[in-house]
Every structure is written in C-alpha cells, then in structure tokens.
C-alpha cells in the first residue's frame, strides 16, 4: 500500500504561475465575476436577514473571501468531494446549489439544503458531494481524511481517484485533529487537499499569535507534505494552485496543503463588531477587497464592460431577492418530523418522547 514519501522537509514550492487575465476567455472571467458578485450579494443579504432575525444561531460570512471561494470551486471537479467549515455559504453557491435552497436552510425551512436541520453552519448536499459544513473547529478534518481513504479503498491500486477538498481556517491549524489527519493522509497517501483559508484571524486572534509556524503552508513539513501559498484575492491564482494540488491528489495520491491568504471584511460572525481590529487592518482589507479589484481588472482588460458589470450585480440582487422570498414562503419542517432522522436503520425502543412525556407510555406499552 505504502508508496515513497516526499523527500525530507518541504520544498516551499511557489504557486504555479497563471497566465493572468490575458490568457482567459472573457466568458470565463465574467463567469467568475458573476459568481463572486453573487456570493457578495448573498452574504450581505444574509447579514441583513440575520439582523432581522430571519436567520438564527451563528452566521459566518465569506465576505472578502469570494475570490478564494470561486477559484477553489472552479478547480473542484463534480466527482470530487468537499468538506467545509461553518463559513461556507459561498462554497455551496459556487458548487452550484441553488441560492433558494441555501437561503431556505439559513431560514430553517424544510426546503433548505439540509431540510432545516442544519442551519448556516451545517449545509450539506449529497448531490453535489458537499459533505457538510461543520461547526466544531477541526471536526471536519478527520472525516474528510476518511472520505479520501474511502476513495483510495475503492480504487484500483495506483489508479486515479476523485479527490477530497477539505477547507479549514488559519486558526484551525493549531488543533490536534489537523495534526492527526495530515499524518494519516501522508502515511496512507490519500487523495486530499487541505485548503487553509487564511483570513488572518481566528475570531480575534492573529495567525502570528496562534501559530508557532505562521507560514501555514509550511506546516505540512511535519509529515513531509508539500504546501503552497497563494494570494486568495486572485481568483485565477487560486484556481491554478487548486487544480495542481487536486491533480496530484487524484493521480499521484499526493496529499498537500494549499494556503489561500485573504482578509475577512467584517467580524467573525454577523454579531461581531470586530472592535479589536486596527484601523490599518480594516483599511487594508477594504483596499484589497477582491470584488472591486477584480471588477476593475476585467474592465481594464476589456473583458467586461461597465454595463455588463452592473447587469451582473443587478442580476445577483434579483436572484438573492428571489431566494429570500422563496425562503420566506417555504414552510418550516413539521414538528411531527422531530424523530424522523433518529436512526437510519430503525430499531425497537428508539426514543420518541417529547419533553414531559412519561418514560413508558402509561398503558405500559413501549413506544417504538
């Protein structure tokens, strides 16, 4: 089973060069801008809906990470698998899930991707191989690694397999599950790419304060796992780097780290005013905001004209509005369904008591 591992240490490989905007079709570039603009519009509306108490729980947004999201999803093939964190609305959208179903999930409606059971942090869609948003920091990493194990288990030895992309935040590289999982992927040569979405902060804790090796793409060194850092504000660079990493995972069963560096435009979640953030930091984030930057680049390069840009943005607003309307009008799951997902294989004596019910039905007949 075991193949040669990499050589000692980690070649801090530069991210693969991209041809830049010039070498992409206008259509492709517009498509990326459309996706980015759409995520932006969706997230801003999600924030608004949260403030209007249409969305409950925690709500973490991809604002500022749109280029990373779109670049990664452009590289991920339909047969690949995706495990994400709780900050994943954008990924679900770019993976092709209808905005209505995502917004409906945030509203807790039965038409949501997870049937209203998951909420913002727990989007799941079997059809697009989105195997879940996870709210426990690092919790997704071992299962993602296990999914890669399953792919290699099912494949002929040395044959290419689909790959797994496992997203995690910068702060998450300090938890034990990260270490254990990377080690497993390395010794078993699993087809997986660990993407560290480095937005510079955990909640308010900087990468530098949290990580002994703040160059996060280098943390694979402890497993001889290669790593690459890419500018997360550059959608093409992200896409190219992800493609290369995914190819190595699929064909050579070479796991790797891909670090995409960008900024979080707002607080950790909708309710966080981010007072701990320096003015300088916020300014920088705003200056490098991938949306206006990419828009300007495309217009400069003649790949997009102003009216199409405005059109794209208006379309985004319209679709998001429709999604909100859909979510608003969809029904909540019915209370009768409370025990519907108790077990996948039914067994006798499975609990079905509501609060205040007796432990045994008064007749002495066990419910089941």
């Amino acid at each position: 089973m075991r193949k040669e591992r990499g050589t000692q240490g980690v070649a801090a490989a530069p991210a693969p060069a991209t041809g830049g905007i010039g070498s992409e079709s206008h259509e492709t570039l517009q498509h990326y801008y459309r996706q980015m603009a759409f995520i932006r519009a969706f997230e801003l509306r999600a924030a608004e809906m949260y403030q209007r108490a249409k969305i409950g729980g925690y709500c973490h947004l991809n604002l500022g990470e749109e280029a990373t999201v779109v670049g990664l999803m452009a590289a991920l093939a339909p047969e690949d698998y995706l495990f994400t964190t709780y900050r994943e609305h954008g990924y679900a959208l770019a993976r092709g899930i209808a905005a209505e179903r995502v917004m409906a999930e945030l509203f807790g409606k039965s038409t949501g991707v997870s049937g209203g059971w998951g909420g913002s942090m727990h989007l799941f869609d079997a059809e697009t191989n989105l195997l879940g948003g996870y709210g426990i920091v690092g919790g997704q990493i071992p299962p993602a690694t296990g999914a890669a194990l399953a792919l290699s288990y099912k494949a002929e030895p040395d044959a290419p397999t689909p790959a797994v992309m496992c997203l995690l935040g910068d702060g998450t590289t300090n938890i034990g599950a990260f270490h254990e999982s990377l080690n497993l992927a390395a010794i078993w040569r699993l087809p997986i790419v660990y993407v560290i979405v480095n937005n510079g902060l955990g909640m308010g804790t900087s990468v530098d304060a949290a990580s002994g090796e703040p160059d996060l793409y280098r943390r694979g060194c402890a497993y001889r796992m290669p790593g690459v850092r890419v500018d997360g504000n550059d959608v093409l660079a992200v896409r190219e780097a992800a493609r290369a990493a995914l190819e190595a995972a699929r064909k050579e069963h070479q796991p790797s780290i891909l670090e995409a560096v960008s900024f979080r435009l707002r607080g950790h979640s909708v309710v966080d005013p981010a007072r701990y953030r320096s003015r300088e930091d916020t300014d920088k984030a705003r200056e490098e905001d991938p949306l206006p930057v990419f828009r300007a680049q495309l217009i400069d390069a003649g790949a997009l004209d102003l009216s199409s840009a405005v059109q794209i943005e208006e379309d985004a607003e319209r679709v998001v509005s429709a999604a909100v309307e859909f979510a608003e009008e969809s029904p909540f799951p019915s209370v009768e369904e409370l025990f519907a997902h108790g077990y996948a294989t039914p067994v006798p004596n499975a609990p079905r008591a509501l609060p205040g019910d007796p432990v045994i039905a008064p007749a002495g007949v066990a419910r089941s």
Partner: protein
Amino acid sequence: MSELSYRQALHDTLREEMLRDESVFLIGEEIGVFEGSYKITAGLLAEFGPRRVRDTPICEEGFVGAAIGAAMLGLRPVVEIMTINFSLLAIDQIVNHAAKIHAMFGGQVSVPMVIRTPGGGGQQLGASHSQNIEVYYAHAPGLKVVTPATPADAKGLLRAAIRDDDPVLFVENLSLYNTKGEVPDETGRIEIGKAAVAKEGRDITVVAYSRAAVIALDVARRLEAEGISVEVIDLRSLRPLDRETVCASVRKTSRAVVLEDDWLSFGVGAEIAATIQEGAFDYLDAPVRRVAAAEVPLPYAKPLENAALPNADALIKVIREILDDTRYQR
C-alpha cells in the same frame, strides 16, 4: 446587595479573585483581545495584561492540559472553554487527568483549577453546539461540578471554586448571562456540594439546576397563585450531589419532578429520580417524573428546536398530571 447580571457577577468575581491572588490567571480562547465570546472577560486583558489573561490558540486538549500542569505547580488557572460542546475535545485531560491526578498519585499533588464553560440549547446553534453534557463530568470522581442558576450563586460558587484545591467544572448557561438578580456585596463563598431550597412548598418538589432552576422557580411562583405549593430545589452542585436536601424535601412533599435541559436517558434527572425513590421511598405518593429534552440531535429550525426542549409549559403539564392523577391522590 446590588443588582447584577449573571455575566457581570462572573466578570466581577474573576476580577476580584485576580486582584486578591497573584496565582489566579485566566486562560482560554479569545478571552483577551476578543474579550471573550460571551464577554465575561471584557476589560481584563487591558487591566491585567497578557500574563494574567492568556489568549490561546484553538486547542482545547492543549490548553486545558496546560492549565492542569500549571495548577500542579501551585497556580490557580481559571480556564474558559467557549461552550461545553467543545469540552469534548478536552475531556481526556479533564476526566483522565485532572480528575485522577490527586488520587492516582497518592494525594501528593492537587489540581486547583476551574474550568468555566456555558451549556445551553435554544439559540438555534444546531446539533453540535447546543448540548448540555454536564452529566459526563458529574459522573467522574475527582471532579467537582457546579451549576449556578443565579447571579448570587454564580458569584459565590465561582469564588469557592477558585479557592478550592480540586478541579472544578463551573457550568454556566448561555441563556442566563443576561439574567439579573440581587448579589450580596460581601465576599462570601457558597459551599460546593450543597443544594439550595430555592422556594419552599408543600405539594410537590421540583428539582432542577442552572437554567432549569430559573424556570422551575418561575413556574412555582405562577402555580402559587392557583394554590399549588411547589418546593424548588436548586441542586447547584452535581458533584458532590446533595442527596439529603433533595430527599428531605420529597419526604415532606411526597411528590417530585425533575426539570433538566439535557437528554432524558442517562441524564442528570435519572440520578435524581433514582436517589429519591431510594432515599424517600416510603414517602413517595407518585412516581418521580422527569421533564427533559427530546432525544434527538437538536435541530436548527426554530419550531423543531422549541418542540425538543423542555420548558415551563411541559413542567406545568407534568406537575398537574401528578397532582391530578387519581391513582396518586393523597
């Protein structure tokens, strides 16, 4: 006496204990620069500096374990685990280490640490972020587990916990942080291991703790108007468990209900019911009932979440069922 929120009572107590004793320090995720996910530690980094208020990376096993080691060398760490759900990442250090070290090494060393952590559902945080799993810790000898329901108890028990030489799990509750109550100005401690009779009554005993104790008290006051006299026992401490106070109450009222926020099977209420039926068997006029959460991973959707969680209405329903059941009339 002054009126304080539960949050403020915790904050003030941490500050007072840090001022009093140089060996007390705070450690946890986002407690410093971010001022705490629930802002209990707001302002303390600015006042005490990073030596006394130590932000950690995200690594519950690591920083809880580090606090154990620091405590073994005589410091008094007060750890914050952001929510009790994340304590499962550190439970090996808590149960296999903190709880064992004093006895396993023949009493040569103690582990004077406090782990503060909130539980609680009802905030639409979904299945993995809404648990009430204090029973895991209540089951483990070597630990002390306290569950204050009021700002006054939050203060008195936190003070006692910090000055205690054993590892204390100090369970807070998300939905209590903004509740207010009278808090004595003097700096008394509340003894760990003692339940409180939160309200005296004659007809039935409701046993509860943390958020449920607040609901129970509210229900008791409402039923008073109808002439139903409910005694409310607030456990305050799950380990040690004050069985005597619970049984003494039931020996008086002859009927009991437990209200608890955790899942029914193998939850805290199971121990209470088991204790009562043994300690007050001859006095019991009706079975002890339990009002607990439905046994499902808590759904996000509000109507489902509401249906799954125990509340005042369910408690009232069960109290009435017990008192009305002709089989169990006195």
